[in-house]
């Protein structure tokens, strides 16, 4: 493999505490090495006056799988004016809010992202998710299977059987080649099978007679019992409704008293995702307001919690979530086309297009809340930048979100451009905020932080010798004052150089190599558990519509270049 030495760049690496000092980064055999360990044949990249960071890590995006593909298939209009032609080894690619798999890989790479996590994998459809992952070039990917409405989980947790829950989770992670324990509207999506919902953590789930709070606590315990690399990852109840911040606080409080138990350097026991959608005050759309302060006051104190923002980008996009009842609610609200899939024994999903218009007050308030969360974060290692792609906006808008976070001037210009500017200012905190995120904090929020939260800190998100050589050079000088905030957006849209596992995949903002992507999954070993195996067998015989053997037959051949993280919970 080629050797590289990236010379004289301003390096930002929270893992080693490097805050923009001039340093060299050396790459050999796909790993970062000390700069005296490369030979004289190493290709030199001149990064003078440029910013050097580790490859960015996406902690939550909907980029592969059945609901993403429903979005692609049922929105031909999303492809309009977006198509790029085939170019050598680079496949043709199109789509805006729900790009084709090829475009997904290329666009992430161009922005300097080298690892991304698919946020919700319905276990029954895991094979589909992995087929799409196979066709997504360059980036390493993992996928979170959803557990929050799973019949096994609800039945075990009703009797507080943590060990059985953990054994089942381990089996399902293995069968689906999944990465983490994901919850979406716990209990509420099962209720949706009867057209109902659970809007608070104490609403009982129909028939199963368990509450969302019990599911959440139980899965935190199962997660720590197993010692998985990532924590329980939750999309809480009551998404998107005015006044829902109390439900969010109730959810966060459930993590109190739990401590992380794992060998991956992870400190949190709960990751609360797309927090923007869960930080609303008021009790209707007229008095809808930001409660970002209440949420962040709590999060800043709760050391065992991490969050991501879910920033609204003010675009026409496609919402998609395993929160089935929410999507039905949304289609009743905006009357745009509604797709829904209920998945036997496991989950559901819905898809509805949505237009975040700067002319609509509520959308503008949502925009403000997303940014406020990041600007109020006291610990940038626990608050990550996402757009919950494509729900609050497409991931391709990260450079714009970064611009808003790094420049008060850019925010001010956007606030002025809102049609209901005064009302938006009155309902939010954004107008008075002058904090500007530094490049070091940016590296925490997009690299070191998510990598640590995912338990991948020894592998990616940093530039320590021995780690994977995922390195990005941005044509952005920390020394020069930013005269026009658009320079920030331009620099982070098209990286000057991107290395993925030591292979240069992007040069001057263009894809030059399809890399050698991996699928990351977690292989958790537990003690033999005959009861759980018997329960699984019985459910397949009686209630599933596929046989257990075929469910388990996902097989390695479909998972491209698998990289298993081993967890031993037999002790």
């Amino acid at each position, binding site marked *: 493999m080629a050797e590289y030495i990236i010379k004289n760049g301003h390096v930002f690496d929270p893992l080693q505490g490097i805050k923009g000092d001039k340093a060299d980064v050396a790459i050999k055999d796909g790993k970062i090495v000390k700069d005296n360990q490369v030979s004289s044949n190493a290709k030199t990249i001149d990064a003078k006056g440029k910013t050097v960071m580790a490859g960015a890590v996406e902690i939550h995006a909907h980029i*592969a799988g*059945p609901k*993403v*593909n429903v979005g*692609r*298939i*049922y*929105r*031909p209009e*999303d*492809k309009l004016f977006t*198509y*790029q*032609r*085939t170019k*050598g*080894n680079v*496949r*043709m690619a*199109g*789509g805006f809010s729900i790009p*084709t*798999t090829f475009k997904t890989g290329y666009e992430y790479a161009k922005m300097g992202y080298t690892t991304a996590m698919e946020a919700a994998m319905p276990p*029954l*459809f895991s*094979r*589909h998710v992995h*087929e*799409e992952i196979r*066709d997504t070039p360059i980036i390493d990917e993992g996928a979170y299977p959803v557990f929050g409405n799973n019949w096994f989980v609800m039945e075990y947790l009703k009797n507080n059987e943590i060990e059985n829950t953990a054994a089942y989770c381990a089996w399902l992670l293995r069968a689906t080649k999944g990465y983490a324990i994901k919850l979406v509207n716990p209990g509420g999506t099962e209720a949706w*099978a*009867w*057209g109902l919902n659970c809007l608070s953590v104490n609403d009982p789930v129909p*028939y199963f007679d368990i509450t969302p709070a019990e599911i959440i606590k139980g899965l935190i315990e199962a997660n720590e019992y197993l010692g998985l690399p990532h924590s329980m990852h939750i999309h809480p109840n009551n998404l998107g409704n005015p006044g829902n911040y109390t439900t969010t606080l109730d959810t966060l409080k459930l993590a109190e008293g739990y401590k992380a138990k794992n060998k991956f350097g992870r400190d949190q026991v709960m990751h609360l995702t797309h927090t923007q959608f869960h930080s609303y005050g008021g009790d209707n759309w007229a008095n809808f307001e930001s409660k970002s302060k209440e949420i962040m006051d709590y999060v800043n104190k709760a050391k065992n919690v991490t969050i991501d923002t879910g920033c609204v980008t003010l675009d026409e996009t496609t919402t998609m979530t395993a929160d089935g009842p929410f999507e*039905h609610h949304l*289609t009743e609200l905006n009357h*745009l*086309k*509604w*797709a*829904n*899939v*209920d*998945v*036997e*024994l496991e989950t*559901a999903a819905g*898809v*509805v297009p949505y237009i975040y218009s700067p002319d609509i007050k509520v959308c503008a308030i949502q925009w403000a809340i997303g940014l406020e969360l990041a600007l109020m974060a006291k610990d940038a290692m626990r608050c990550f930048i996402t757009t919950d792609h494509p729900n609050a906006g497409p991931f391709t808008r990260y450079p714009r979100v970064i611009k808003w976070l790094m420049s008060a001037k850019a925010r001010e210009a956007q606030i002025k451009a809102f049609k209901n500017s005064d009302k938006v200012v009155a309902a939010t905190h954004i107008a008075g905020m002058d904090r500007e995120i530094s490049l070091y904090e940016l590296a925490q929020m997009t690299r070191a932080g998510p990598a640590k939260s995912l338990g991948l800190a020894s592998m990616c998100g940093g530039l320590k010798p021995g780690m994977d050589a995922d390195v990005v050079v941005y044509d952005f000088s920390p020394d020069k004052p930013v005269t026009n905030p658009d320079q920030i957006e331009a620099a982070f849209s098209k990286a000057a150089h991107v290395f993925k596992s030591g292979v240069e995949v992007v040069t001057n903002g263009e894809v030059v190599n399809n890399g050698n992507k991996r699928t990351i999954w977690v292989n958790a070993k537990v003690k033999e558990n005959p009861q759980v195996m018997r329960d699984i067998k019985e459910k397949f015989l*009686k*209630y*599933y*519509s*596929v*046989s257990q*053997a*075929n469910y388990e*037959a996902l*097989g390695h051949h*479909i998972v491209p270049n698998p990289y298993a993280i081993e967890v031993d919970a037999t002790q």
Partner: protein
Amino acid sequence: MTKTVTDVVCPFCGTLCDDLEVVVSDDGKQLTEVYNACVIGTEKFLHSQAKDRVTRPRLRQEDGSWKEISYDEAAEYTAQMLAKAKKPLMYGWSSTNCEAQSVGHEIAEMVGACVDNTAAVCHGPTLIAVQDIGIPSCTLGEIKNRADRILFWGCNPAHAHPRHMSRYSIYPRGFFTGKGQKSRKMIVVDPRVTDTAKLADVHLQVEQGRDYELLNAFRVALNNEWLPDVVAGIPAQKIREAADLCKSGRFGIIFFGMGVTQTLSKNHNIDEAIALTKHLNEFTKFSIMPMRGHYNVTGSGEVLGWQFGFPYSVDLSRGFARYNPGDTSTIDLLARGEVDAMFTIASDPGAHFPISCVKQIAKLPSVCIDPHQTPTTGVSKLHVPVAFAGVEVGGNAYRMDNVPIDMRKVVDPPAGMLTDEEFLIKVRDRVKQLKGAA
């Protein structure tokens, strides 16, 4: 001695049953018996054992006879044909695995082909309707476990999807449907008294081609608004009773087929059926699902979807993907004489297309990749027989509810035969050379 392969997936219809047991000889070369499958599925497996099977590619001669050629020669012919054509059509894909489809799409991208699957003459109007209005649906296991109201609209599963009712929709005892058939009400809407209709609690014998009116009347009845005495040949009272029956259920589903997609009004019928489903969700829980025909037509739509963003009728001839059914769809391309080469795989347009289109295929340079001898091979210049996907090679397929299932190989193909994927890889590599791509 023989051995039994269990959990075999049936590569025939969109029901994609995965509980078959197949008995094969000890050396894995002969397939002797098939259990659990329906008559059609059993035949598909047994047919692979036919003694008169074509096992090598055949090229049509001047005098109309066939000449046997090697796979390499066949790949060369196919690659040359596709590379030379200005706008080739690559049609079919519905009876092979997703892996082969994926390789085919790479070829199509290089040669600038139109790619289309059998939805073009089947559930294409459904896909158009879904693009208009969305689709609330569910997996088949949800039906089995929860559904107490089942509507079959313009479809006849008793004949077309023989195990659908026993595995998923009418007879099984699920979690919340412990009494099986007794816990369900079955409504059939069909102008004919089909074998499915004979089983129904309510049969609405709609006037042919009047489905749109009846669907609309259902929605009126849901709101208890005024209806004419008779709509689409059905008395208003009967429509109201059927609508109330739907409303009173806990979980309902509409399954629909060619009777609504390919009759007068086409996609507008489906628009209305989906609107009805959405409407029913104001009263109870309701879903709707197309009864997909070929076992992997759904998979073709999925793979096209994630690779190009459109589920069928994808035109790559301009170097980027375009989708405009009526313009980029197979029947229209053939009828207008717009394509200059025809590549058919895993389907039989010769048996199902209008005769004018079949004549057009006969005029064009053409290749047909199919394990069987079909009317399409009959009009093609080159016939490439391949291993039976789902019998002689595994691979991925998507059920009618989009659930992916890995098919199993149960028996070896005849010696020296290639699979769809293997043959397409040969073609792809040759096309790469011809096109000078890296």
